[in-house]
């Protein structure tokens, strides 16, 4: 072999004798990395464009709503309605970010580098899922905070007014959490099926948007029960169904009666379906990565 000595840069190899952190820290590192990736932080400028465009849009909308309310006194949308109205943006955000989180790793073949480390197999998909859900929740919840601050500082009822606003805000944030959980689990599962980002993005959009016509068709069928269960067919209407059932007048204001009749007495069915959907997607995601890890 060639002489290894005489290499100028060689100041010798240092062994590491310090501690190796446990599973919780590793999970946290992977989660934070995912969350940063979702917003393009630590990535190229190109990767930042879309996430921050969406963040910009929702913030501007929230600021506009707040301004209108403080000037005219008219509530354009409640906190929970804000999440509903932004759902199409959330879909596109998931379609761009979910492939960024998982498809890219599948494509570049970096997964063997993860799975050859002490990381348990399920931690990788779970950390990514949690990162995506957090990103979505921040996307929907952040602007609600803006709306809350605007309302709290312009309220005429003093502390009572602030307290009432807070009581309106919290269900809104929870509802945003539901959107985040459902959209993140479905979106990440779809994206994890392919390493091609364009296919993954198309797949995510297809699952969320192509199911809407099914809901439309079912809701004009000549059966009231079928109409009321139609919302189960698409993730967006499913989440809205749970919202209508649990939040009631926080979500449905003026035409409340009409909206409530959309799901009839099937509120608990919607809630159970949402839980099952999330659980099913997570289970499939874990199964998917059990298979990927042994490649």
């Amino acid at each position, binding site marked *: *072999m*060639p002489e*290894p000595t005489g290499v100028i*840069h060689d100041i*010798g*190899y*240092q*062994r*590491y004798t*310090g*501690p*190796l*952190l*446990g599973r919780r*820290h*590793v999970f946290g*590192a*992977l989660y934070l*990395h995912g969350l940063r990736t979702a917003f393009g932080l*630590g*990535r*190229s400028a190109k*990767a930042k464009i879309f996430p921050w465009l969406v963040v910009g849009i929702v913030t501007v909308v929230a600021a506009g709503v707040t301004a209108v309310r403080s000037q005219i006194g008219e509530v354009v949308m409640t906190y929970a309605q804000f999440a509903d109205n932004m759902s199409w943006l959330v879909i596109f955000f998931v379609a761009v970010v979910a492939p960024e989180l998982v498809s*890219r*790793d599948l494509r*570049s*073949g*970096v997964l*063997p*580098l*993860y*799975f*050859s*480390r*002490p*990381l*348990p197999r399920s931690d990788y998909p779970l950390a990514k899922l949690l990162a995506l859900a957090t990103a979505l929740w921040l996307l929907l919840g952040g602007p609600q905070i803006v709306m809350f601050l605007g309302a709290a500082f312009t309220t005429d009822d003093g502390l009572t007014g602030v307290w009432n606003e807070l009581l309106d805000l919290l269900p809104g944030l929870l509802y945003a959490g539901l959107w985040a959980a459902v959209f993140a689990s479905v979106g990440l599962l779809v994206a994890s099926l392919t390493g091609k980002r364009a296919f993954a993005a198309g797949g995510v959009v297809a699952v969320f948007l192509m199911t809407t016509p099914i809901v439309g068709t079912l809701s004009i069928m000549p059966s009231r029960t079928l109409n009321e269960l139609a919302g189960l067919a698409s993730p967006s209407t499913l989440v809205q169904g749970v919202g209508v059932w649990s939040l009631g007048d926080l979500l449905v204001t003026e035409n409340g009666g009409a909206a409530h009749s959309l799901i009839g007495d099937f509120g608990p069915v919607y809630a159970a379906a949402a839980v099952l959907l999330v659980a099913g997607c997570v289970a499939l995601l874990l199964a998917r990565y059990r298979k990927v*890890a*042994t490649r």
Partner: protein
Amino acid sequence: MTLIATESLTKTYGGGVRALADLTVAVEPGIIGLVGANGAGKSTLIKILLGLLAPTSGRVRVLGLDPTTDSAAVRARVGYMPEHDALPPDLTAAELVTHLGRISGLPRTVARERASEALRHVGLYEERYRPVGGYSTGMKQRVKLAQALVHDPDLLLLDEPTNGLDPAGRDAMLALVHRIGTEFGISVLVCSHLLGEVERICDTLVAIDGGRLLRADHISAMTSATDVLAVEVSEGTEELSARLAALQLPVRRDGRLLLVELADDATYDLILGAVAELDLPLHRLDQRRHRVAELFATREPSHA
């Protein structure tokens, strides 16, 4: 301490493909060459050693631990460099290796320090702040090696580290692996389908074919007492062969050459004497080292 030990290790894939068949081998710490043709079962063996695949039957121990039950503990002490492309193109080498160091459990600042150290040891300096997508194949291989080193493992598993490199790149990579094995105090298992390459750097050689063990031994045991003298005469090869045999020298024909085992310096004199007596035109008389490949060739002619 035994570094890696397997006992009747067998792996049969779903389709009935037998990747490993009754493989029993034990190796000591050092640089180990694992050679075999493509599809011989090298990558399957590595995945079992990492605990990523469960063996169909048989037992395996790595660093005294069982990767089938204790895979996290094994993986904490092992670094793995995969054969195929494994680098996301838009991250810089520094970011990627730091991130993977944290996934191995290094604290944040330690991960950053050790990542730049590891990249420096493999010969990447300012380049480490550029996206990996723009790297040459040689640089990518170095990044893959650096990420395997970042958490200071006790054993490195390198799957075809010289894949896709030009001759100079191969030499540099082999020199690096040799340095890791000798100076860093880290044992290395190098997989390759090129015997000539790994035999230059390893202490122990394990050869597998079709999932079966061909041979495992110290390289010194394989090459010792195998020095031969190659004699070439332009005519009278047969007569010389007969004369040398009469002198109690073990002689083999190899095409136009006569190969004579070199016992000591007296062998030279005997051969020269024989050539002079027969008055033959001598073309060549030189010493050759037995290549390990020839050992395998004579043992397992069907796999040569």
